[in-house]
């Protein structure tokens, strides 16, 4: 006999299925988030982005010492102020920066950082700590959507833990055709009515299948419109293009989630890292240009994070290893631009790495309460929102 308790014990994450079919929940909440509701686009930079070469403390003599081969000189950075500059490949973000629509938050992390990709990402996804808690917890976005209504849309084959909630639904896709059914009649008949109560795996698949059919119908109606805006051909460029298309088509999702991989630069970093941040900057710049032209940008904020920064000291393979605090970008017309918080000291170190200066949960608190208008109480303890949005 499969009890809820045994399920939670044996497969905790897997038990995080919505208990109400998401399309029904959406109907019930139709009066809630409308097509004009604000949305958050979360961009996960996978693998641990080298924060120090992303937001460069070019004026700090310690930086040059730590990075004899990897350092980026003052002449090359995109200057933010007298102390900090962006990696030169982030130049396409200059327009957002000068327009006051880009917030750069250095030194974002959490206490006692883990340098495991998976543990650290699980902590960022859940805003919970400890192996057991991160394994079993709903995601920070999933929890917030549970209490405030609305769904998330994941531009990736798998829904990340961050968007998992008890009820919150995550629609996932990588191309529009992926959400259209070839034979809707046969599939609709096959799916039948979803089981409301049971927790077993068949009931779970049934609920998800009902949701898939509903999603397919919705997307079909939603994506007929063509987009003429130019996007880079990169993977991330195409993902953000799809997000923009859904936004312009009036999708009701409150949260969009996309991932850019490859930041695990242990060796021969300079060329690889320049390509990564270049792909990032080009895609984000094109995204906001498209949304601005379509007059939907005001609804949209983008938050980019990585699970950790890299070691401040370069290694001997012209790379960097798993470090601690990283940098976060928040962009959009609702953002109050600037460098927010303090860049970490490169001399006051713990275990060889800088101390974080901003708890990541303060960024989440701002995104939830000050942007999405959702409760931020699921962050474990009260977190004063970091001031990245215009009042």
């Amino acid at each position, binding site marked *: 006999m*499969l009890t809820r308790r*045994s*399920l939670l014990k*044996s*497969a905790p*994450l*897997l038990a995080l*299925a919505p208990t109400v079919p998401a399309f029904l929940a959406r109907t019930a909440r139709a009066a809630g988030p409308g097509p004009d509701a604000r949305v958050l686009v979360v961009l996960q930079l*996978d*693998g641990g982005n080298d924060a120090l070469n992303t937001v460069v403390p070019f004026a700090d003599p310690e930086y040059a010492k730590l990075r004899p081969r990897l350092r980026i000189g003052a002449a090359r950075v995109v200057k933010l102020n007298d102390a900090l500059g962006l990696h030169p490949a982030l130049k396409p973000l200059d327009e957002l920066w000068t327009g006051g629509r880009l917030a750069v938050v250095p030194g974002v992390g959490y206490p006692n950082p883990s*340098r*495991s*990709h*998976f*543990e650290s990402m699980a902590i960022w996804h859940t805003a919970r700590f400890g*192996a057991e808690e991160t394994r079993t917890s709903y995601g920070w976005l999933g929890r917030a959507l549970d209490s405030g209504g609305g769904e998330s849309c*994941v531009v990736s*084959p*798998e*829904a990340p833990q961050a968007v998992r909630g008890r009820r919150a639904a*995550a*629609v*996932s*896709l*990588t191309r529009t055709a*992926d*959400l*259209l*059914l*070839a*034979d809707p*009649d*046969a*599939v609709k*008949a*096959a*799916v*039948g009515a979803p089981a409301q109560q049971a927790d*077993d*795996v*068949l009931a*779970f*698949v049934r609920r*998800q*299948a009902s*949701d*898939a059919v509903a*999603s*397919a119908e919705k997307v079909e109606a939603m994506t007929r419109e063509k987009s003429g805006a130019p996007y880079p051909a990169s993977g991330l460029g195409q993902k953000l293009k799809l997000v923009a298309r859904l936004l312009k088509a009036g999708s009701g999702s409150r949260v969009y989630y996309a991932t850019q*991989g*490859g930041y*695990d630069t*242990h*060796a021969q970093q300079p060329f690889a890292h320049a390509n990564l941040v270049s792909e990032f900057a080009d895609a984000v710049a094109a995204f906001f240009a498209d949304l601005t032209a379509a007059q939907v940008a005001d609804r949209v904020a983008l938050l980019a994070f990585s699970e950790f920064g890299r070691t401040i000291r370069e*290694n*001997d*393979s012209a*790379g960097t*290893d*798993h470090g601690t605090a990283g940098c976060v970008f928040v962009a959009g017309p609702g953002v109050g631009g600037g460098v927010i918080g303090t860049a970490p000291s490169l001399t006051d170190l713990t275990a060889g790495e800088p101390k974080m200066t901003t708890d990541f949960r303060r960024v989440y608190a701002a995104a939830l309460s000050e942007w999405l208008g959702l409760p931020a109480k699921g962050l474990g303890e009260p977190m004063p929102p970091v001031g990245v949005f215009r009042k």
Partner: protein
Amino acid sequence: MTTKYWDAYEPDAKAPWNLLRVVHLHRRAAFAAPWDDLQRDVKAGPGAAVERLLKGESTAHTPADFALTAGVLTDAAASVGDLNRLKAAWFYRMLFGPDPVRERLALLWHDHFATGNAKVNNVGAMRRQSDLFRTHARDRFAVLLNAVVRDPALLEYLDAPANRRGHPNENLARELMELFTLGVGNYTEDDVKNAARCLTGWGVEENAFAERPERHDDGEKTVLGRTGKWTGTDLVNQLLRHPATATRLARKLVAAFFGESACPDDAVQELATGLRARDLDVSGAVGTVLRSRLFFAEANVRSRVAAPAEFVVGSARALGLFDPAPSTLAMADWSARMGQDLFDPPNVGGWLGGRAWINSRALIARANYAAALIEGPNAGRRDAYDPAAAAQSAGFGTARADVLTYHHRLLFGTDPGAEIGTRLARLDGRKLVIALLSAPEAQLG
């Protein structure tokens, strides 16, 4: 491993040997089987059916030139550096191969030692790695692990060549302990640092493993409480002896062969104990699992989400689509659209598996694959599937009810119940089979 949990299965009134259990065996241990194989195994009984699978004996639909063709396809993919053709060659082996359990385990090892060509960028190296998973699929874990940690693709993926004396690169050491053997919680950060020193000097030269003494840190290291001038080989041997490795291995096998909550934690521990007593003999453990009462228990039937590659291959095999077969290039692409892109796992942790396979996009991809397979062209088949002809050649009639009964028995091992009968009441012919393959029940195995 004679223990209380892993007693051999003997059919009785509660768990009779019937079509349901034959379908279960083939879907779970292999990639499903066509009607004739199922009938043969119903008659043969559980002993013979399981032993045939464990031995990897040739089946009627394996082409006579299978080994030659599989080799040519793989060689050709590697020589032109075409990753899609390499994926297709793997699907060819899964679809036609005489030893589906071996292919099932090769996939498991690809997931366990996840390596992505996006970083390795060497189709030849990825090919050699997948051959290695196949060659050592049911070896002792020591043989497999020792081969994989010296595999050029994995070494490149985890930056081993950058790891040298005085400048340790921790990537391989960390994932070796966290993912390949012990699991989180069984080692410290210091263990990772020292393990990285043990592995210094391991790298790749001319596409082959190379151990360079001048790059090796031959000083004393302390790993998991033991101090010595350990080498990489010493480290691997120590990790193999650690009890947590047997437990992790047992969990992997249970995840592959059991559905949710169908295998109690005590049984996992017992399997791990058996693995330790038998030198981490994977073949022995797989035999124990597939012969067990626990494996054939009611709770284990249709309680596990089939992975995309299993669903893609299993649907084609069950329907007997061997001649003409679907395009294996198309099969690889469909699997990717369902979330499992071979040679490109999401990260070194592999695929999440289980319920994480199921979301809107994946379910739509599964339903669309079902439609493609039955209609033909989008799965690379010229002709559409003929449900009535298939039912007839299995000895059923061609009326709608017969076609439904045949396909329901074929896919699920049971007669259609009233509920599914009502759901599918308005469908006939190809649409009926598309619906059966798209049904929530068909996503489980």
